[in-house]
Structures are given as C-alpha cells and as structure tokens.
C-alpha cells in the first residue's frame, strides 16, 4: 500500500510537513519534527533505489490521472540516485541545524527556518522525481523561493543583498526555463517528458526547438552556476547560515545538473543535443575555464565560505566537463562527482559551521589557532580538504580518476593536465586555511574557544567519514553511476 505510493510520498510528505511545522508552537519540537521528516524521506529514497537499481522504472500517475492529462512521476535509476543524495544530505544537515542555528538565527525565526528547509527539500526532491516538464518548473520555483528565504536568514546584513542578487538571477533563470518549456508545449502539445521525447525526435529541423533548447540550457546554466552564470553563488553560500550553505552546496546545484541531464539526454535526445546542437563544444570550454579560473579565484578569498563557494564553481566545471566528453565514462564521472562532491562540500561546510559556531565568523583570520583549540573539527576539515584535492582513498580521487580516464579515452590529454593542475590549485587554497589553523596562535584578546558540541561534530564527522568509506568501498556509488550513465547514453558500442 505505502510502497505503491512511495514516489508521491517522497515529495508530498515534506511539502505537507512544511506548513504543519509552522503551526508547531515550540521551536524545539518543530526542529525534531523536521529531523524526523528528513529521516523518513531518506528511508523512502533508499527504498526507491532498491526498487530501481536493476534498471526497472516506476511510473506513478498523480491522483489517478493517467499521463497526457495528469502529472506523472517517473522513477528510474538516475533520479533515485539523485534522490538518495539529496535526502541523505538532508538527513544529516537537518539534525545539525538544530544546534547550529541557535547562534545564527533569532529564536522568533526558527519556525520559518524549519518550514523553509522542508519546502526547499520538497522542491528539490520534486524536481528530481517528476516526469512532467512544467511540474519541474513549479517545484524549481518552490525550492528557489524557499532558498531565497533561507539565505536571507544569515546573520550578516549582506545576506539580504546576497539573497536579492540570487533572487534576481534565479528568477531570470527560472523564466528562461519557463519560456523554453512553453515553446516545447507550443511545438508538441504535451508536457510529459516521455511524450516530449517521442515527439521531439520526429520534429527534425525547427527554429522553435532550437530556441527552446537554448532557453532551457541558459536557464539551468544559471541555476547550476555554470561559468559565467555563477555570480550569484559565492555570496549566497557565504552569507547564508551554516546549515543552509551546507545543504544548498551539497544538493541544489546537483539537482540542477540532474535536470539539465534529463533535458539533454532524455527529452531533447542525444541526436538533437549533441549532433545537431553540438552542445558539448559549448560546455567543454566553459567547464575548463570554470575549473581553472574559479579555482584560482578561490586562492585569493579571505572568507573560507567563499573559498569553498568558488571551489564549488570549479567542481561544477568538472561535472560539466564529464558531460561534454559525451561518453559513458565521462557521464559516469559526472554522476559520481554529483555524489562525491555532495559528500565533500557537505562535509566541509558542516565542519566550517562547527568552527563558525565557536568563533563566530568564517573569516580566514578568525580560525587562527583552531588546530589546537578544536582538534576534532580541524581534523575533519583536513580530511575533507584531502578529499577535495583528490588524494587516493577519498571520494575525490574516484571522481577524478574516472574523469581522467574519460579524457584519455577520447585522447584529450590536455584535459588530463588541466584536471591535475586544478588539483594543485586546490592544494593551495585548502592549505592556506589549514596553515592558519595550525601554525598561528589565537588572535590576541579573543575569547577562549573549545571543541564544538557533539551535536555538530557527529553529523560533520558522519559525512567526512563517508568521504573515506566511499573512497575505498566504491561498488555502490560507481555501480549506480555507471548504470545510470549507461541508461542515459545507451550501451557502449
């Protein structure tokens, strides 16, 4: 009974929980309720992965209205994999936020925070699971609007401008997507993704189709912070509350990448996207620029959150590079990095949040001397940094290995060199932080700091430990990613 409605519950549960949460008068109860919901959602995602990992698809018609009329949810191995990432991160970040927001957000706004987190989660999960192009837009807006709210809750007043900047850019992106979807509807008369795919493949040369493609590409490019459309991201991550930075960095851009993949491969189809539109020759240079330049910019940032944010732009470059290589290995690298980068950045932002909780700032000078004052937190940060660099036995190595393999398969060895160079730049920007923490004494006259509370350390270490676990036991992540990539691109020939 429940199993049958699993795809719907995956989204409806957090969606309904959001207003309910707002009604709970007690902040503590509201927080626990949110956590509970995130855990249940995570269990649902695990069940969906189990149900689809053999390659089968689940179709769920909402309200019993069959597809051309109603909204259909389609679950296959690709989106159950993304659901797993999103809900898994939520299941760790939500309990973490119970403590972390205490010093960041005034009590009166805690309910708003929890409700917005739930809405954002519902939106992201919905974008991932839906089989309907317009529904995707609606859920995208739900997640975007709630994330504008969440970012503006940051304690620094610049959080408001950051949120506003993101609001403008995000709205432009969403509008572009809406225009694209509208054009598709005008052209084909359907919004169901599966139907769209069938009808588009028979259209042939069409200016409208090309326009729709371009609008959608640019729209998602904005949402996923593709270079040079990434300008909103550093401020948004930097000024949001710690838990929000961790949650958005680990999930929001990933879901946008997923949506882009869905449009490129499933809806427009390989023939149109890669042969007629040659999209990979657009993505590759942009990805390379993102990888090199965003990494370099990260070296010169003074706010650690901004360092991580620019590094995220570079990591998104890796994912786009994987797509642009247009092979099963390349796509596997992209999907793997979706998973691995969620663990890396999630873990790093969570440990950074623990530091901010103790010292009250994320400026690079404020963490001086934390190596001694907060040994456990800093140790977690070091492991996360190693994973970001891509040292073997961490997940970062696995994604880079696949990406390098994919570039060598195509004979593009300069790309291999670029990937290695950017790893070296990653050494520079992470080591700057680590050196400050271990080699400089606490600033004069600063308050005594001690280790972060367990309620922050345990979630942070959980994600950091996953960096190592999935760096050694790779069967689960590589298995799912390879299968999903093969499904998208067709069996290798």
């Amino acid at each position, binding site marked *: 009974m429940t199993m049958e409605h699993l795809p719907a519950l995956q989204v409806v549960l957090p969606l309904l929980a959001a207003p309910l949460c707002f009604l709970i008068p007690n902040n503590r109860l509201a927080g626990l309720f949110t956590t509970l919901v995130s855990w249940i959602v995570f269990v649902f995602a695990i069940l969906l992965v189990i149900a689809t990992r053999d390659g089968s698809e689940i179709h769920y018609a909402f309200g019993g209205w069959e597809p051309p009329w109603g909204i259909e949810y389609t679950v296959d191995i690709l989106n159950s994999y993304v659901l797993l990432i999103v809900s898994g991160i939520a299941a760790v970040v939500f309990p973490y936020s119970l403590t972390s927001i205490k010093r960041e957000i005034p009590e009166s706004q805690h309910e708003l925070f929890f409700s917005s987190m739930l809405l954002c989660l519902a939106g992201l999960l919905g974008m991932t699971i839906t089989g309907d192009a317009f529904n995707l837009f609606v859920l995208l807006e739900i997640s975007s609007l709630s994330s504008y709210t969440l970012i503006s809750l940051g304690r620094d007043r610049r959080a408001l401008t950051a949120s506003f900047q993101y609001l403008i850019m995000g709205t432009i992106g969403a509008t572009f997507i809406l225009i694209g979807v509208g054009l598709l509807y005008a052209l084909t008369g359907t919004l169901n993704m599966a139907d769209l795919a069938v009808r588009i493949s028979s259209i042939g040369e069409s200016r409208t189709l090309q326009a729709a493609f371009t609008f959608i590409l640019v729209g998602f490019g904005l949402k996923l912070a593709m270079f040079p459309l990434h300008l909103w991201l550093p401020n948004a991550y930097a000024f949001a509350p710690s838990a929000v930075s961790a949650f958005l960095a680990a999930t929001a851009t990933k879901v946008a990448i997923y949506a882009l993949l869905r449009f490129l491969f499933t809806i427009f189809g390989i023939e149109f996207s890669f042969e007629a539109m040659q999209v990979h020759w657009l993505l590759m240079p942009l990805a390379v620029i993102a990888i090199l330049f965003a990494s370099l910019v990260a070296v010169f940032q003074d706010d650690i959150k901004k360092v991580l944010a620019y590094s995220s732009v570079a990591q998104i470059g890796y994912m786009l590079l994987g797509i642009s290589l247009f092979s099963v290995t390349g796509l596997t690298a992209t999907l793997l990095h979706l998973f691995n980068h969620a663990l890396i950045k999630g873990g790093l932002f969570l440990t950074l949040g623990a530091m901010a909780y103790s010292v009250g700032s994320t400026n690079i000078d404020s963490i001086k001397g934390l190596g001694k004052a907060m040994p456990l937190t800093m140790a977690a940060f070091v492991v996360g940094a*190693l994973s970001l*660099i891509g*040292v*073997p*036995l961490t997940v970062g190595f*696995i994604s880079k*290995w696949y990406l*390098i*393999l994919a570039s*060598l398969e195509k004979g593009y060895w300069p790309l*291999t*060199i670029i990937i*290695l*160079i950017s*790893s*070296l730049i990653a*050494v520079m920007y992470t*080591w700057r932080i680590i*050196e400050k923490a271990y*080699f400089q004494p606490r600033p004069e006259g600063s308050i005594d700091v001690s280790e972060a509370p367990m309620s922050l350390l345990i979630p942070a270490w959980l994600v950091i430990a996953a960096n190592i676990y999935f*760096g*050694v*036991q*790779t069967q689960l992540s*590589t298995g799912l990613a390879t299968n999903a990539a093969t499904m998208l691109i067709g069996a290798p020939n």
Partner: protein
Amino acid sequence: MGLQASDLIILALTIPLFTGAGILLTSRWPNIREGVTLTGSILLFATVIALLPHVLDGERPTWELTEILPGLKLSFTVEPLGMMFALVAATLWPINSLYSIGYMRGNKESNQTRFYLCFAIALSSVIGIAFSGNLLTLFVFYEVLTLSTYPLVTHAGHIKARDAGRVYLGILISTSIGLLLPAIIWVWHLTGTTDFVAGGILKGHIDGPLLTLLAALFIFGIGKAAVMPIHKWLPAAMVAPTPVSALLHAVAVVKAGVFSVVKVIAYIFGLEILRDAPGIDWLLGIACFTVVVASFVALQQDNLKRRLAYSTIGQLSYVVMGALILAPLSLIGAALHIVAHAFGKITLFFAAGAIYTASKKTDVSQLNGIAKRMPWTMAAFSIGALSMIALPPVAGFLSKWYLLLGASQSQQYMAMAVIVLSTLLTAGYFVPIIYAAYLKDEDAEQQRDHGEAPLPMVVALSLTAGGTLLLFFFPEIPLELAQSVGVVSP
C-alpha cells in the same frame, strides 16, 4: 611460528599504527609513552626479520587489502628490494627511538606526543611503500608519508618552520600530483595494470621519445629522490628536530624516493627497454650533475646539518645514477647504496644532534677541538664520514665498488668520472671537520663546559656506527637481496 608470510605483512603494516594508538593513550605518562614506542619499534623489527627467510627462499608473499576500482587494487608484495628497504627502516627505528628520547628530553622539546605519533604513522607508510605491490599502493603511501612527516618538519611551530614546511609540502605534493600521478595513469592507460613485475610491464607498449618522457616523469615526479632541480625541500626540511632529519630525511623519506625510482626502473620499465630509449643518457647526466653540484654546495655550507643535507642530495643521486646506468651490476650497487648510505648518514646526523644537545653548536666552524670533549660522538662521526667517502673498511665502499663495476661494464665513462670526482669532493667536505675536531685547539672565547650528550644518544650513534662497520665485513644478506632485485624468477 604459525604465522603465514602474508600475516607478517599485515603485522608489519599495523604494528606502527597500534604503536601510534598506544602513544596517544599513554600521552600523559611520558615514560610509558616512550616504552610503547620502543616496544612497537622492536616488534616491527622482529616482524620484518621474520619475513626475511621467506624472501631469501625465493618466496614473494603477497596480501591484497581491497580493490578500489576494477583493476585498481591496494595490494602488497614483498620482493628483495622492498625487503631491503623495510629491513633498513625497521632496524633503524628502534635505535632512532632511543636517540629521540635523549634528544627530545635533552632539548626540552614541546608536543612530544605528536612527535612520536607522527613518527609511528610515517614508519607505517614506509613499510607500505616498501611492500607495495603496485604503483597505486606506492602512491598512496608515498602521499601519507609526505603528510605525516609535515608536522614533524614544522615541529618547532615558528615562522621559519612554517615557511620550510610550505617548501617541503609544496614541492613534494606538486611533483607527486603533477608528474608522478600522470605517469602512473599513463602506465595504467598503456598496460591496464600497475603491478610491479620483475623485468617490467611496459615492453611492447611504448617506445621512442615518449618512453624517455615517461621515465623523466617518474624520476622528477618522485620528488623524494631529490634529483636536481627538485631538491630544495630537503635542505628546507632540516629545520626539523635532529631525530627527524636523521631517520626521515637521511633514511626513510629520501630512501623511499630512491627506492621508488629503482623499483620503477626495475619492475615497471625493465632495464632492457630503457637501454633503447633515445636520450636516456640525458637523465643519467642530470643525476651525475646532481652528484657533483650537490657536493660543491655541501663544501660551502657552514651549518653542519645543511652540509649533511646537501651531501644526502648527492648520495641519493648515486642511487638514481646506479639505476640509470642500466647494468645489472650497477643496480646491485644502487640497492646496496640504499643500505650503506642509510647507516652512514644516520650516524652523521646522530652525531650532529649530539653535538647540538651537548654544546648547542650548529656550525662547522665552531667544532674545533670538540673530539676531546665528545670522543664517542666524533669517533662515530668519523666512521660515518669514511663511509660517505667510500673507503674500506666501511659499508660505503661496497656499494660504490659495484656502481663503478656496473659503470665500466656498460662503458659509462662519464659516470665513472663523476664517481671518482665526487669521492674527492666528499673527502673535501668531511675531512676538514674531522681534522678540526681532533687536531685543532678549542676556541678560547666560546668555551662552554660540556661532555658527551645524554647516554641514550651516545648508545644510539655507537650502534649505527658499529652497523656501518659490520656491513662491510658481513654484507651477505644485503648482497644476496640486492643480487635478486629485478631478476625474473623462473
């Protein structure tokens, strides 16, 4: 014993780690903590010794830890070269621990728990490097060694230490990720494996200039071998406490570098295909250049530890040279030199640390007449120096003999000339120290009454000096191991 050879590998890898855990748990009681270090190091020594008969019998024990990706395994195989390296590290760790106790307490260093802990982790990764069964495993432990020795280099924690640490980490990490890793990926891309196989795995997969390029990637990518111009990290690392310089930057870390070079040349390339590589002589030329130039630089250093560091750079390139001469005899010389130089150089560093602890003197020019006050230390120093110069009856003579034989066998006259020249230079920078220590009178104004360093240090340096002598008279075991390096077993 009822232990299988593969169990011994696991033990050898984990004993240092358990030792590290023990050190953490007992950090509040320094005497027990040092007891743990000594016990752990002796257990490791016993374990490695227990592996020796297996390897001498021609066995190649293996152990597979896990398969990260299809074809990418973490696996360990004990072959003669690795056995030799592990044996050197495991023999010198207990002695060095003894020395450390004297040094760290004598100089009242801070953060001693972290010091012993990082030391134990470094030793575990040295064993990992020595026993690695493929390039990936080698690479993993190579990086762990870099990272675990970083806190040791920067132990003092002041600005100078931090800057030195930056140089250390910057050079080692950037060469390993920028050059070594691409080389490994390249090998994997060509052959689909990274396993070490006697005789090499690259035959028939690559030739011409690309082969030379690949060899260059390995030789410069393994920055720990300190072939010029990738040598700056080694003098920088001298800011560390002397026991670190002694065991790690005269033995474990640098030997991990040249060991990897020899291993790659013998087990990935194979001597045969490299002989036909165009321009391979240039690589040999760079090694020769390093030997000569490092010796000249050493001549000019007044700081004793820096002089020793540049001497190490020169001596390391002997090993690289021995491997690149590409003759079986010179390969034996290269392998033997890993052992001989280890014992000689650790003795020299021990002596330098002992002098510092007893008299706070760091410069060569301050050492006039010191032999009267520290007779044991200077006697050991002299033995170590003789071994560096390569005079009989000291271990250094043996390895240089084989290097010369190999060079003449393959008619590398340049290499022969370099060996002779650098012998003169080595004498040039060590003999004045010995002369001043024994025959000059103490300077009147900086007299400070002192005797020998604390007893554990004197015992340690006497042991390694004795080892240097013994190796000359009883070279059977290292020689037998060296002779079977890279030999294709039937």
